[in-house]
């Protein structure tokens, strides 16, 4: 096998260890997929509910392999001028002005139309040249000399057409610019696409990616994550907190709390110097965990039960 660009991602267990050292506790699944993505040079399409660490995965990956992270946030109406490249129109227009002024010098002494045109051609076409190209995230990721992590965040928010635009980048790591030609990636970046599943992505896009679904974590995993991210929190409190969050996810809520909310809550409790989950504390801080008024009402109604579960009873 050729020497890989990302030696840190050469082995599944090594990935697990490196990521957890960087503060990202990943399941064997995630590690396996990251390993495969590096080995097969394929992008990863990460799906899952909001807040389970999809974006964080890409950030951590960049940290582990010590390469720059190029991020493209998708939104409705995102087009190639904002994702791939744009021409520097102002400079181009200036260039035509200059060309007009210089025209006399170039054409000086030329006989007849034919020769003038030949002379004009011989000056070379610089109007569409790389110098006038303003790279946007995708092109920038392709232009990194020794690898990068490209994060295409929330691809499901972009328009359907934008997906087609990505296909060339994702499968061949190149960008075709009609006026110039094809720009090949100097080194193949690690590509992460994230999706919150608000709509179905096209088959063509899915086919080019490895698929990774990150669900809500198990109790053990979430405990490890809390310990890794908020190490100052006492272990018995963090256990209580994780059990409480898991119990709350069982309720019929508009938006279940994800890992990011769990961590926010853990940090809040730390700031409040809490050492025990009790009804008052939960009542005061529940808005960190739940984002909708009706969810909060629902959870408070069952507070007694939830606290019992948190105690491990």
């Amino acid at each position, binding site marked *: 096998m050729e020497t890989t660009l990302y030696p840190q991602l050469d082995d*599944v267990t090594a990935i697990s260890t490196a990521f957890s050292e960087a503060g990202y506790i990943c399941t*064997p*699944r995630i590690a*396996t*997929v990251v*390993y*495969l993505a590096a*080995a*097969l040079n*394929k992008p*990863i399409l990460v*799906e899952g509910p909001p807040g389970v660490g999809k974006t964080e995965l890409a950030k951590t990956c960049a940290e582990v392999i010590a390469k720059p992270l190029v991020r493209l946030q998708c939104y409705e*109406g995102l087009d190639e*001028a904002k994702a791939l490249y*744009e*021409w520097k*129109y102002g400079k*181009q*227009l200036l260039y*035509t002005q200059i060309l007009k002024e210089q025209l006399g010098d170039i054409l000086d002494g030329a006989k007849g139309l034919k020769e003038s045109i030949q002379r004009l051609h011989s000056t070379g076409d610089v*109007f569409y040249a790389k110098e006038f190209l303003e790279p946007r995230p995708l092109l920038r990721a392709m232009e990194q000399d020794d690898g990068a992590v490209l994060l295409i965040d929330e691809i499901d928010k972009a*328009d*359907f*057409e934008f997906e087609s635009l990505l296909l060339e980048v994702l499968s061949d790591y190149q960008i075709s610019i009609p006026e110039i030609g094809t720009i090949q990636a100097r080194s193949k970046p690690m590509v992460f696409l994230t999706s919150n*599943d608000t709509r*179905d992505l*096209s*088959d063509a896009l*899915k*086919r080019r*990616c*490895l*698929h*990774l*679904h990150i669900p809500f974590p198990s109790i053990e995993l979430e405990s490890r994550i809390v310990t890794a991210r908020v190490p100052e929190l006492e272990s018995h409190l963090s256990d209580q907190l994780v059990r409480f969050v898991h119990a709350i996810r069982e309720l019929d809520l508009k938006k279940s709390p994800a890992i990011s909310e769990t961590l926010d809550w853990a940090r809040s409790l730390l700031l409040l110097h809490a050492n025990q989950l009790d009804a008052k504390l939960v009542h005061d801080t529940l808005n960190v965990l739940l984002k909708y008024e009706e969810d909060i009402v629902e959870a408070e109604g069952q507070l007694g039960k939830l606290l019992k579960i948190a105690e491990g009873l």
Partner: protein
Amino acid sequence: MTTTAGSNQLLAFIKFLRGKDVPVSPADTLDAVHAAGLLGYDDRTVLRDGLAAVLAKSTFEESTYREAFDLFFAPQQLDTQTLESGNGEQPASTSENGADQDKTTTANDSAQSLEELLQNPTAQEDPTLAGLMNSALMNALQSGDESTLAMAIEAAAETAKVDEIRLFTQRGQFTRRLLDALGETALRDAAIEFEKSQPRAFEEIQRLRENLRYRARDRVERAYLVHAAGDTEDFLDDALSEVRLANISPHQMARMRKLMDRMARKLASRHGRRRQRKRRGQLNVPMTLRASVATDGIPFNTHWRQVQRKRPQIMAICDVSGSVAAYAKFLLMFLYALQDVLPRTRSFAFSSSLGEVTDWFSEFPVEEAVSRVNRVYGGATDYARAFTDFNELALQDINRATTVIILGDARNNNSDPRLDLLAEIKAKCQRLIWLNPEPRLAWGTGDSAMLKVTQHCHIATECNNLKQLERIIDTLLSAMHGN
């Protein structure tokens, strides 16, 4: 190396997956083989997770994939020795070597007992029996050596061409062939010989035979699942999609539902929402400037930022009188399975009077809504009244983006159907489609006004099975999205 054997297994698994309706492209297959090569076949969980990333492209597919993986690679199935047996390199000889070693080390109680049982003159003198007792298969069976046994079965399965099984009813036949290839005949002969003379040895042999038969049957069933079950399912689905919708019996509804959902998913992904650039709104300066270069800096052609989302709408009018009710049910179910691409479907039902039933479909599950429609609006057909009601109710909402679908047999019990009202609808909408469950030959016969109706429709077509329904909706969607 176990790679070839492994990839053979992997290819069979992919075939199995396709049978389970997970679309795996040849490119995916290549990736899967690469991935498996990188991950190795030693760790089942790692392989399962890795292949999931390559083969399953959505959460829905992933759950199917996980089920299939567990079914296909039964946990003990995936040790390297088993995979080696697929290599085709004289598995019989290797298995004998392996078994010989095992024989000395792992002879357990039952094996000894049989050997003891056979420590008598008749058995010793019989050369075929002695041969049998020394055979690898026998040893493996007695010592419970799983891997040797599995290898022997794989080899025999290849000889007996078990993987060619196509029909469920062939299981018995293939099990017999597999057992023959395993050399079970010798065991049977021995059993016959001992039946009278040595009852204890007979019992022991029968026990081993039963064990072997069980494994053979298991192997054949797995082959059926992998190689044929998918075909049969496809065959049933195909057949069902061509059955007249009125003839579909309640016990087929579950399959029908699945089939419709699948068709709907396919159509939805083919006709994802599309947009067109608008000709007004905010100016797209870069694009306009760029286009102006050709005209010496004069912005001759303007470009606009905003894109317009077409808002197509469907109005479905269904005759729910006795003769057509069954078809209306499927049309409505299909339209509502397509909510992703047809977000603004309004539905109306009539027999004599007409009413809007859209809300029922948002309130109740589709099947219940349909039965409610039948209950409330069922009766004798009166098209004149239905058109009058419809025009009062919804004509003002019809515009150039509206498609009106009418399902009915156009039989109006010999009274005037008021087709002038139909013409009014046609004049306002983008497209008027009439679906008639009767075959084309019956149009215009008896009290059918269908031939006259045809003149007032953009499209009038026969529609009485799922296949026709799918084709019509497909044409409709591509026309609506303008491609």
